[in-house]
């Protein structure tokens, strides 16, 4: 190694290394400039948003009590920022106040702007537009939103569906329920939120009807569990018969439907379903059956629940013990007695555990 192998820039290794290093340094400088520009642009945007909020917040706050009679002028370049502010207020308020906000929005002419934004290439803008049009109950955009509800992007399609449900729940819900059942990429919790806003009166019958319809065809059956889960938002009395019908088809529908169906039962006259499934071969169905008896079972179910205390699954034992604890006439002391008299170690442990929880509750 006594000789100098690489000595000048003409060497290919060195030239490559030098050029790469120079390129990297140049990029570092460009990126730092980009960081500063992004920061400056964001600060400018925030300043504009603050100024807009300062001007409009009194008007928006006034909507909480009354519809505005005069409408301040909304500058064209402020419309998008205004949508954000308006939506935020809309979601914070309820009832008449939301109506007043719609009057304000129509007065300042944001509906046509939001409809134009639906054609934007930016997902962000389209999402804001769909939310606004839904809140505005804008019937003119139903056709466009209907097409968007079938878009392959779950974010876009679900936002469109939610807007449609807001615009015209009675007509749109029956049309959208098959989509809700089929689109596994739409988050169930978000759908539940949208349906909750519509109210149990509006959703109970269409939901139960859709679940029953879907259960009849093999091609649509995979969507039934989603609909049954959503039926938890419905009126118990309104869906009582439909749940009965679904449980009659239990053998076709499988445990994913049986378990949530059992959770929907609230009438002691339907307790026979829970009793029937106490020995189901899928553990979470047994859990659901025991939990249902905890709600609607009678004193006579004690003998049926006792064997479940020896179940291989912890959750079955736990729910069975809880169901026993809640049976008419059962007290924590009685659970302690049962624990003392049982030979099954796991059953005794579980009874003591639940007795302690009951005392604590």
């Amino acid at each position, binding site marked *: *190694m*006594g*000789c*100098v*192998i*690489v*000595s*000048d*820039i003409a*060497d290919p*290794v*060195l030239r*490559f*290394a*030098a050029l*790469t*290093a120079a390129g*990297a*340094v140049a*990029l*570092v400088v460009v*990126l*730092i400039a*980009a*960081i*500063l520009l*992004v*920061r400056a642009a*964001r600060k400018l945007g925030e300043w504009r948003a603050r100024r807009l909020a300062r001007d409009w917040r009194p008007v928006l706050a006034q909507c909480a009590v009354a519809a505005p009679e005069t409408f301040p002028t909304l500058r064209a370049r402020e419309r998008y920022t205004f949508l*954000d502010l308006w939506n*935020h207020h809309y*979601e*914070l308020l309820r009832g008449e106040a939301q109506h007043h906000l719609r009057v304000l929005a129509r007065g300042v002419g944001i509906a046509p702007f939001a409809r134009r934004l639906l054609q934007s290439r930016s*997902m*962000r803008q389209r*999402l804001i537009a769909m*939310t606004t049009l839904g809140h505005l109950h804008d019937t003119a955009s139903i056709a466009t939103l209907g097409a968007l509800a079938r878009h392959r992007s*779950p*974010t876009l399609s679900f*936002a469109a569906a939610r807007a449609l449900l807001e615009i015209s729940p009675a007509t749109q819900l029956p049309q959208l329920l098959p989509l809700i059942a089929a689109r596994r*990429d739409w*988050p*169930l*919790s*978000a759908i*539940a*939120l949208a349906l*909750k806003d519509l109210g149990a009166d509006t959703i109970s019958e269409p939901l139960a009807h859709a679940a029953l319809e879907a259960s009849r065809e093999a091609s649509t059956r995979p969507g039934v569990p989603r609909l049954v*889960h959503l039926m*938890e938002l419905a009126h118990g009395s309104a869906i009582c018969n439909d749940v009965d019908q679904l449980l009659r088809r239990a053998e076709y529908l499988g445990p994913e439907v049986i378990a949530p169906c059992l959770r929907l039962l609230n009438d002691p006259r339907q307790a026979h379903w829970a009793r029937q499934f106490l020995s189901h071969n899928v553990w979470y169905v047994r859990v659901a059956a025991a939990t249902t008896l905890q709600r609607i079972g009678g004193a006579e179910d004690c003998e049926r629940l006792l064997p479940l205390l020896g179940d291989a699954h*912890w959750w079955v*034992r*736990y729910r069975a013990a809880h169901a026993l604890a809640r049976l008419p006439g059962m007290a924590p002391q009685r659970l302690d007695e049962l624990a003392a008299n049982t030979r099954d170690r*796991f059953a005794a*442990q*579980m009874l*003591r*555990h639940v007795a*302690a929880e009951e005392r*604590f509750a």
Partner: protein
Amino acid sequence: MNGADAMLVVQWMFVGFFVAINVGYIALNLVAAVALKRYRDANVLEALPDLYSGLEPPVSLLVPAYNEESTIDASVRSMLQLRYPQFELIVINDGSRDGTMDTLKRAFDLELFPRAYWPLIEAKPIRGIYRSRRYPDLRVVDKENGGKADALNAGINVSRYPLFCGVDADSILEANSLRRVAEPFLNQPDTIVSGGTIRIANGCEVEGGFLTKVGLPRNVFALFQVVEYIRAFLFGRLGWSPLNAVLIISGAFGLFRKDAVIAANGYRHKTIGEDMELIVRMHRHYRLHRKPYQITYVPDPVCYTEAPETFKVLKNQRVRWQRGLCESLTANLSLLFHPRGGAPGWLAFPFMLLFELAGPLLEVLGYAFVIFAYLLGGISFQAFVIFMALAISLGMLLSVSALLLEEISFHVYDKPGQLALLIVAVIAENLGYRQLNSMWRLWGLWKWATGTQGNWGTMTRKAAWSKPT
């Protein structure tokens, strides 16, 4: 091959390694940038008020604690205030030698509870399970010492809910962090793990266990770690997420589907990087059994943690991390280039093996070669400067691009002074700190290769940022 040829080959290898590792990371950076834009666009409505549907799956928060006497009270109180529809908090006292258990008993009015224990996963014996008379959703498990993995396994056995979230006792969480990391479970039914971004708490203000003001640390080690965490999380993890190939979900805050973890036999005992090892094993399990699954990384900052500020503690941490990485990868070698390995087996695993496991060795050898070659007259001063400039400038490029992603997305550090300091830090950390890190990691690699028992490690917590409730 004569000496000159050999030298040339080594030079090309040095240049090639630095270019390859940085091109690899820049590619990840680009994937992360696209993923981040999509994520931010799709979550534009998240700025609207928080709402819960009632269908959110309940979560068991597992907090392993070993000698956390000074911080456990505040940590538990802050976690009890998390915003989420239904969760239970299980603190696992892993045979602490200090007053952790007494502090818990006193602060939360604990009483023994006859819990029907169901040991689904192997764990050290439990001395007692306690419940709080004041907080119905708080349980404390007192068990024999077995390490963090063992403590988490015991927590899984005691937990009631279908999802569990492993949280370090010193983690400072955002109030809505659970909701953020639970989202993938709602949006994609086959999600088995989800984790969020961890940030550095040093320099921040914390009150009642919650972060009240974001700041930057004055300590230079902690400052450099801020940059490291931005880099590691924003593209080290987000870059792999769209490919479903994230191999690390931080143990400081990760949400898991319990049945999936139980199917994989829980956390592995006697390992240091139990969090990474579990994730790699779950990839292996699901890939090799052809089961559909998603391991998702949520880029939102959800958790802040205290970074070491002294040379010794930081060195120990990095040595431990490197050993954890080595253990995690070598324990799951069958995933590497397995026909069913997919992106984790064919991309992420080899990437980690080459650039993260062997990277420190190659990097330190590269630097050593250049320095010795110059000192011994093998290369000119000009060549020495160029080679060093290459290695350092590519590192700077990566750090600056991470900072750009941060500025575009979450811009947590909002003050102009903070941005200026971060820009200085992304440059300066490449001038010594990063090389020092490589040496520590090389030491970790050596310690792993020579085989030493893993343990909880010692992290001296200052919690200087924390104010009482």
